């Protein structure tokens, strides 16, 4: 038995919403990173699903790009988080409000 594409898309939507809400409500930078990863992977899942449904390999190719970009983003982002932790001894995002107008 195989599930229809809609299930996958529904899962992707749920995962994306979990990620988005997590990003909005959590204060810990590391958790926020994880949420971003959730959202990215939800998008990936959508790409793969549509690729499969439409029979177009392009969608799966895009996923690789997304993974590479996500990896690069994590490298830079974690670097910033670690450096910031060394200076301020905090990983709470709301403490980082130096750009407040």
């Amino acid at each position, binding site marked *: 038995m195989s599930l229809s594409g809609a299930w996958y898309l529904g899962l992707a939507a749920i995962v994306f919403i979990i990620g*988005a809400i997590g990003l909005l409500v959590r204060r810990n930078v590391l958790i*926020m990173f994880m949420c971003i990863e959730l959202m990215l992977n939800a998008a990936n899942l959508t790409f793969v699903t549509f690729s499969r449904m439409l029979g177009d390999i392009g969608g799966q190719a895009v996923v690789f790009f997304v993974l590479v970009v996500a990896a690069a983003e994590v490298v830079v982002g974690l670097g910033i988080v670690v450096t910031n932790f060394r200076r301020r001894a905090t990983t709470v995002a*709301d403490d*980082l*409000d*130096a*750009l*407040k*107008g």
Partner: protein
Amino acid sequence: MVHVAYLMLLLPLAGFLVLLTVGRRVGDPIAGWIGTAAVGGSFVVACIVFAGLLGLPADQRLVVHNYYTWFASGGLSVPVGTQVDPLSMTMCLFITGVSALIHLYSIGYMKADRDYSKFFVYMNLFVFSMLLLVLANNLVLTFVGWEGVGVCSYFLIAFWFERDTAASAGKKAMIYNRIGDAGFLLAIFLIFFKTGTVSYESGPGGGIFGQLSHLGGGTATVVVLLLLLAAAGKSAQIPLFNWLPDAMEGPTPVSALIHAATMVTAGVYLLCRMNPVLHLTAHGMTVIAVIGTATAFVAATIACAQQDIKRVLAFSTVSQIGYMMLAVGSGAYTAAIFLMVMHAFFKALLFLGAGSVIHGLEDEQDLKRMGALRRYMRWTTVTFSIGWLAIIGIPPLSGFWAKGDVLDNAFAHYPGLWVVALLTAVLTAYYMSRLEVLTFGDEPRWDTVGPHGEPAHHTPHEAPLIMLVPLVVLAVLSLFGEVINLPWAHTHSLNSFLAPVFSADQYVDGLTTTRQWVLGLADAVAAVVGAVFAVILWRGAAVDKPAWEPAFLQRVWYWDDAYDLVIGRPSQRLAAFCAWVIDGRIIDGAVNGVAHLAKVTGTAARRLQTGYARNYALGIALGMALLVAFMLSRTWWG
């Protein structure tokens, strides 16, 4: 020989440039000698050109040289050119001659002045501009000279600019002249509009004078009235005469040269130059005559009550130029030029004599603080007295003949104005004699402490030789200058010399009729009456006679006060309104308002920048949600 006329212009210009570059380095007295040599050389050239002009037949005495075209645009072509004819020649001769004498005098007078060389820089530039004014062959170039003398006048009035009064007197002269200049410019525009040329009598169509038919009736009157406005500014006539007395803040040689002998007669020259146009309008002529007479009379009354020796002479100058205007208005241009030349001699003499007095009395200018100078300054006394007798019109000195000519011609055309002019002659004799008596007569009043605590002066000293030489030369000219135009057959050479220029001259001369003998006698009687009265009144030690110096006259008929009230105060209020309301509120308000708006917007908008990443993320999420909702709505209802 006439073609070297340009050298007359170039010599003072060269003197100006040389003094401008090296004047400060060579300093006192070489700078003065350079300036004097330049102007003296110009006088020599003028004599040569004059000889050349005399060598030509009378009807060919008009030599025009166009050196190049200054600018041309459409139908307008303004050449840089000179016009040597009897009128410009007469002007050049006395301008360069008197200027040379006054330059010589200044070498002594300005000695040890801080800006010695600068003085001669300005003076040479002035002589150049004045010669340009009279030698120019078109109105535009004349206007250049006109402005040049104006700006030199400003520089020289404000020469001691660290004195507040001198600085503001310079500004006053500048502003009054601006008003006149506007008239000059409008006259040029109108003439060009009607005739299509600005040249006097050269160039296509015979210049302005060749196209008088285009200046029919009303146009000529307007042109003449505009020219009269120009002349009123430059020649200090009503209603623009107030600047000249204040111009006495300048050094005395400047007063003698610019504000008595030469520049202030430029207005009279301009009107004489334009005499064919004047001839077209009887109304214009009448206005000129009335303005001249009124100025002569008003200025003479004011001169009766002035205390400052130079201010008396200044009002006297205004009054005498009024006479010249009366002569112009009577159509007797020769009489105007004759009085102008004689006036240049005796008024320069009087001013230089006054300068000598001021010099000898440690810069004292108050008549009430002089007296008995005849004992200490013999040469000055003798020469000044000659000038005095000349200006009041005692026969047979130059003033008698010159003023007599003006009065004769006024009588022929405007008997009413003649009465006023004769009365003015009495006043002239009165105030000049008062000046003479207070300065040189009686007992000294300078050796005691003055009524307002002025310190007593040292014993006066006679001026140095270099200042006396010009005095003596001018005294001789004041004594015998009249030989150029005596009223007998074969002796009115000035009249016959000028005849080709003044085609429309209505000059009458000659002691041929009983009437003219009577008129001449009346002039002499007027002079004697005024002089005798003044001598009787002002002899003796009591010099404070308030009844004879009413405040009305001392305050110049409240003329300045009236201008202040009518023009000055409202202008100040308008300026204050513009400064504080229009500029301060409206213009600054708009500028500041824009800035304020930006600030308020910024203050409000900065609240959006919380610095919390989650807020930004929420913004992105909401935006995305909106976008999705929009797209879905399009799908469902589109």
